[in-house]
């Protein structure tokens, strides 16, 4: 899991002094942010790949119709029963029929399984990100703003969760619970252990923000707690939250793949990249493509999210320094 560097925290808190002036700076900042983003090549390439994967996941059934093979369809003609049921042809059976080849043993189309696997990876990673972000922001702000006992309780809870050997505990929980809806379970379990990382940063920023003059001013003019939290503090946390969320996604993609690899992910035959890598491992010598393809897609997705988060942070920092 990623943590935000102190300089970012300082920078974003810093920059927020300028927004004291009022509302009119926000749209200008957004435009500047966007312009910096579209001229940033790594950020754009990463965003493009993520978009491609998102579209693939959303339109998986349509894409699979185009490619001709569903993710669960066996193609016994594409494998050689006399040779350990390995794919016929070079590169793991790549052909016009099966674009990325087929799985050994059953002849399922790897392209279709990659496309459907993207659904699992992205659903889990993005949902977990949304959930951890909401939880992290709300709880972090509560702790930071109210302080005292509330802060003490929440901080202890966060320390407790962060001190936990999360991966081991996730495996234990997932293998103990019934496998009825693993996707939801994965999201919940990942979120339970994920939110404190964001909440900690939100808390510390809230702590410093609430002492600022504009908050004092709002309080003096009779604003309620809710108004101060949502109108004064939250807008100033925006860039932190965006960057933190973008940097959290690759971690969750990796966690989902890891849990599937360890056999506690989605239930077969639902495809998932981690599971594909796990089942491809014994074939590394005789059918390397089976291993390379899901590995490559997973690698690119994690790298794209990481790059995107990193570039977002850089752009945000630069913008704030200039502003």
């Amino acid at each position, binding site marked *: 899991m990623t943590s935000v560097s102190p300089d970012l925290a300082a920078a974003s808190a810093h920059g927020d002094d300028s927004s004291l002036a009022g509302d009119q700076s926000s749209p200008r900042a957004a435009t500047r942010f966007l312009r910096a983003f579209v001229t940033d090549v790594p950020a754009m390439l990463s965003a493009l790949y993520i978009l491609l994967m998102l579209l693939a996941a959303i339109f998986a059934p349509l894409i699979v119709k185009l490619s001709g093979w569903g993710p669960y369809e066996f193609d016994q003609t594409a494998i050689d*029963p006399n040779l350990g049921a390995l794919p016929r042809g070079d590169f793991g059976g790549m052909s016009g029929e099966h674009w990325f080849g087929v799985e050994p*043993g059953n002849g399922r189309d790897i392209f279709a399984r990659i496309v459907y696997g993207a659904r699992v990876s992205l659903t889990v990673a993005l949902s977990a990100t949304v959930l951890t972000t909401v939880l992290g922001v709300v709880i972090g702000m509560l702790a930071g703003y109210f302080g005292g006992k509330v802060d003490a309780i929440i901080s202890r809870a966060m320390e407790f969760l962060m001190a936990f050997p999360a991966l081991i505990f996730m495996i234990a929980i997932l293998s103990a619970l019934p496998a009825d809806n693993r996707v939801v379970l994965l999201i919940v379990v990942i979120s339970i252990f994920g939110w404190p990382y964001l909440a900690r940063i939100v808390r510390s920023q809230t702590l410093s923000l609430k002492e600022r003059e504009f908050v004092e001013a709002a309080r003096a003019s009779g604003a309620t707690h809710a108004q101060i939290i949502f109108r004064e503090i939250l807008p100033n946390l925006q860039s932190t939250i965006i960057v933190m969320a973008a940097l959290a996604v690759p971690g969750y993609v990796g966690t989902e793949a890891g849990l599937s690899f360890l056999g506690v992910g989605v239930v*077969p035959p639902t495809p998932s990249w981690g599971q594909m890598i796990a089942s491809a491992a014994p074939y590394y010598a005789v059918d390397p493509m089976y291993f390379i393809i899901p590995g490559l897609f997973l690698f690119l997705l994690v790298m794209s999210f990481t790059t995107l988060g990193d570039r977002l942070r850089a752009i945000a920092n630069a913008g704030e320094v200039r502003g």
Partner: protein
Amino acid sequence: MSRLFRNSMVAILAVGVTALAGCGAGGSTDQNAGAGEGDGPQKGGTVHMLQNTDFSYLDPARGWDGGVNAFYRLMYRGLTMQTSGDAEDPNAIVADLATGLGEPSEDGLTWTYTLKDDIFFDNGDPITSAEVKFGISRAWDPQIGIGSPYLKNVIDAPEGYEGPYVTGDLPTIETPDEKTIVFHLKQPYPEFDNVLSQANAVPFPEGSGAGDEFIKDVIASGPYTLDSYTPGSSIKLVRNEFWEPESDDVRKAYPDAWDFEIGIDPATIDERMIAGQGSDQNAIASKISSATLARIQTPELQERAITAPAYCTTYMGLNTTKEPFDDVLVRQAVNYAIDRASVQNASGGTQLADIATTIVPPAVTGHKQFDLYPSEGNAGDPEKAKELLAEAGHEDGVSFTLDIRTNPVAQAQAEAVQESLAKADIDVKLNVIDASIFYETIATPSQQHDAAITGWCPDWASSASTFIPPLFDGRNITDRGNQNLAQFDDDAVNTRIDEIMAMGATPESADAWGELDEQIMESAPIAPLALENGIFVPGENIAGYYPSTSMTDLTIVGLKDPSKG
């Protein structure tokens, strides 16, 4: 430990690919006849065996699975034994310490054996009937006797007898003189010779082996004795100087020593066997994985590779007490709809698996070839299945939950079943259970679901008496440790089982088991899926190797050139 566990162990071994194995009498017609061209095994040298898991126990009263039974043959002798792995019928039972097979009395309740001369323990003491009796009576010890249950089930011990250390003498085994031993049975058991060939029917010096004495060291009666033992990593055997080759018709004991290398990753074992460097050319190992198959297609490796037929049937048990499988038409529909060719591919393709349409596999005596639910190319007949479902009132199809264990091959098989049944509007939900609790779960009727994919191996292959009765005798259904997964209870079948059991292991009973197999399959309480063969790649210098998926006869293995490696 219960019998369920033991059999599960065998099932894990044979069906679950991992396996120590490398076990068992070969004797298939299609195998490359043991070792290469003419140069048979020579005396001397050290044979290595590479394996992943440790043997369960050194003490034969405790261990009971295919891998360890093969190991026990090197160290222990019983009154009878399964014959040599290169014999024409490797399933046959022959005399070992006894001069001949048992002589039953008129009523079949008393069996008499006479011991050979020149039989000794590894400490030089002669083996007499008293030691044989003592060794056998250890099976009743509540702590030690956790191996094969047959002695306890068949011999008529007094009520509450708990072995020689707790209770003392077992009066129902008589030793009138040093060479004669007489057994009294609960009821006639024509296959009693098989019972005495089980690993726990071996002699030990009187008074030895109490408690944990045999956990790390043992007293051998066979051609080898323990040199060193490091649990989980290595076992070394050296010659038992007191073993007389003339007294043993089966064991050849060519090498001077055995070196079992334990705890090696299966993929590493395959790599080492293919490379065959250094001492690995003197090594044997468990069967190769399907991923390795493509790599042994070179002429040089093909010459070394040996295929051994399956002794176990991989099947899907259909719970006949629950919807929808309480209806025979639905069970038949499932049997029609399954694409067995795709299950075969999921099991590793045609070289590693054959298609099963019967309960008893061809390697086991009592097999009859038939296919009551045929389809073209074994690819399943979803149309016929839909007709049967409609007839049963399920026009919209049915759905059921299938229990499977966390094992790549088992999951691939389950996915193949799921995919082929979907074509007949049968919706299969997979319930993946951790392998460590899988067998316990499905053997508990209150916890099992509608169906489960598992395997069954016979305790002895010379008759189907340990294949059909445990799986289909309705009187064997229990609340825990239930092996009759289908909970199939048919009076006609139960009666027939009793009749055939009374015949003993005769040619007539073999035919009768085959007929009964077909009779049971008409009710389709299970769907036979695959027969998982083993392909073994022994080292270049190995000779006399007849691997088997049940129990490899290690006692006839040797080196072509003992000076190599």
